[in-house]
């Protein structure tokens, strides 16, 4: 294994990890399905067959229909769009805030660093879930606010990780050399520091997505997240719970979908971490 870059090395290790590859496969499948939902789902998500009402899985409706006669499979496929969208966008928001915060704190150092990290410490200790609920109550339940609010909560760990990495890098020769050549701060971040910390960032981002999706599901379950007629997996589970005594499939299929997705993301994230940092793979 000579002459191989970090990434091809990591990819080789990742490919040998069956659980991670399986997780990655499920993930790609879900993303494809979510994008193609309008074309592959058997019915529209709002199409109602009122004569049918709630019906168990059958040949026409593979996963059955809900109380309003809507096809459950179609609703799960459309729900994938919202759930995955929240997962990716809110993680991206967290990524942007956390990485910038961490790079600046780590690179500038000194007083700026200690103030910035003290802020992170303080925010860590607060019950953020309550503030998200508060924001949703005050400003209404809109999707973009949800992205922003969740992203604004999840960036803290990212900032800590990035800062630690940058502190490790900033006294190395290539950084000092770049500095001596008069590279500006911004291109120092972008060209020299960022590429070297992509590994940990990628790992943590993958592990943040399932957390974000859980948070969205939690809010939607309480009725404070995604609002009808849009539906995420969280709202489907909420609807399923309301009618689970008679129509248990309405809870079980969305539940299975959600759980498998979280499994896939966690396995893939763990695999990625082991692949990029073989030292930790023992624990």
């Amino acid at each position, binding site marked *: 294994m000579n002459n191989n870059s970090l990434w091809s090395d990591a990819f080789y290790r990742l490919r040998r990890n069956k659980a991670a590859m399986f997780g990655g496969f499920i993930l790609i499948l879900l993303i494809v399905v979510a994008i193609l939902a309008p074309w592959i789902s058997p019915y529209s998500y709002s199409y109602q067959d009122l004569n049918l009402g709630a019906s168990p899985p059958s040949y026409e409706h593979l996963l059955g229909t809900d109380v309003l006669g809507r096809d459950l499979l179609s609703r799960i496929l459309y729900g994938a769009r919202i759930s995955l969208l929240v997962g990716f966008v809110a993680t991206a928001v967290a990524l942007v805030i956390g990485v910038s915060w961490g790079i600046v704190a780590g690179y500038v150092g000194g007083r700026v660093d200690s103030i910035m990290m003290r802020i992170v410490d303080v925010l860590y200790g607060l*019950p953020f879930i309550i503030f998200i609920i508060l924001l949703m109550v*005050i400003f209404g339940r809109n999707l973009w606010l949800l992205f922003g609010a969740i992203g604004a909560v999840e960036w803290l760990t990212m900032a800590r990780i990035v800062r630690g990495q940058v502190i490790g890098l900033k006294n190395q020769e290539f950084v000092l050399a770049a500095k001596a050549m008069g590279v500006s701060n911004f291109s120092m971040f972008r060209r020299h520091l960022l590429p070297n910390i992509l590994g940990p960032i990628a790992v943590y981002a993958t592990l943040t997505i399932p957390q974000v999706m859980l948070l969205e599901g939690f809010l939607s379950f309480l009725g404070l997240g995604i609002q009808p007629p849009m539906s995420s997996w969280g709202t489907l589970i909420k609807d399923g719970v309301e009618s689970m005594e008679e129509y248990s499939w309405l809870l079980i299929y969305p*539940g299975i979908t959600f759980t498998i997705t*979280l499994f896939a993301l*966690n396995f893939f994230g763990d695999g990625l971490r082991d692949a990029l940092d073989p030292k930790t793979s*023992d624990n």
Partner: protein
Amino acid sequence: MLAIFFKRILLAIPVLFAVATITFFLIKIAPGGPFDADRAVSPQVLKNLNEAYNLNASNWEQYVDYMSGLLRGDLGPSFRFPGRSVSEMIATGLPVTFELAFYAILIALVMGVFSGVIAALKRNTFLDFIPMSIAMIGICVPTFLMGPLLVLIFGINLEVLPVSGWGQLPGDKILPSLTLGFAYAAYIARLSRGGMLEVLNQDFIRTARAKGLTERMVVIKHAMQGGLIPVVSFLGPAIAGLLAGSFVVETIFQIPGLGRFYVEAAFNRDYTMILGTTIFFSAMIVFFNLMSDLASLWLNPRSRDAS
């Protein structure tokens, strides 16, 4: 040790002050007043209500008023339940939520530490794989799905346990506590397995074995003290998570605790209740984080001696 304690407390006070201030003004900029929701109120009644709750004063006056009330432990009246104060409602809900959280933590600690330690000792055997796979399930199945599933299995299909309430029917506390505790049992199992594995490879464990201690003594007296530090540090943040979990569990099982009050207040736009509980929750979480930090400092001899 004591110095750290006072330093942290001194830091917590301005933080809570900031939380109270930010929440207060956030609620002030919220659209709509507390009384213009479902039914129309005549202008005269509205005027009287606003006067009664001192809502005509300037924001600044109301703020000073509220903060001085806060110092005396008075969180103001509830806008939705006339005649009841927010402090009163917190006082009724809190014991229920505490009891639920206590059982959940107990279940989580017993199940988690036990299976985690066994898994670490019997590494790469079935006693390792099976509990750790179950733990993975516990982490991936969210509380809001686990609760209904348990209800479906034990309450509706097997009909062995009550599906809602708290302290009214025998056994109605079992399902809520299990639901809330299971996710934490899973995390704790993983943390204690990792912590134990790290400690078990260290020299002082070899020394303990070499001097002829029984395996039981080595594990209980020497390894667990260091190996469980991650679990102790996790407990502080876990309290914050338990709180969020209690929102869900109390809603599913219709338990009259603080979590359900909060969710209901959020739906009813009962602003004083939201404000009061937010401040209260924050204070509680800051306190528990402090406790767990101090406990892990105290457990770790290196940092204990250094301070």
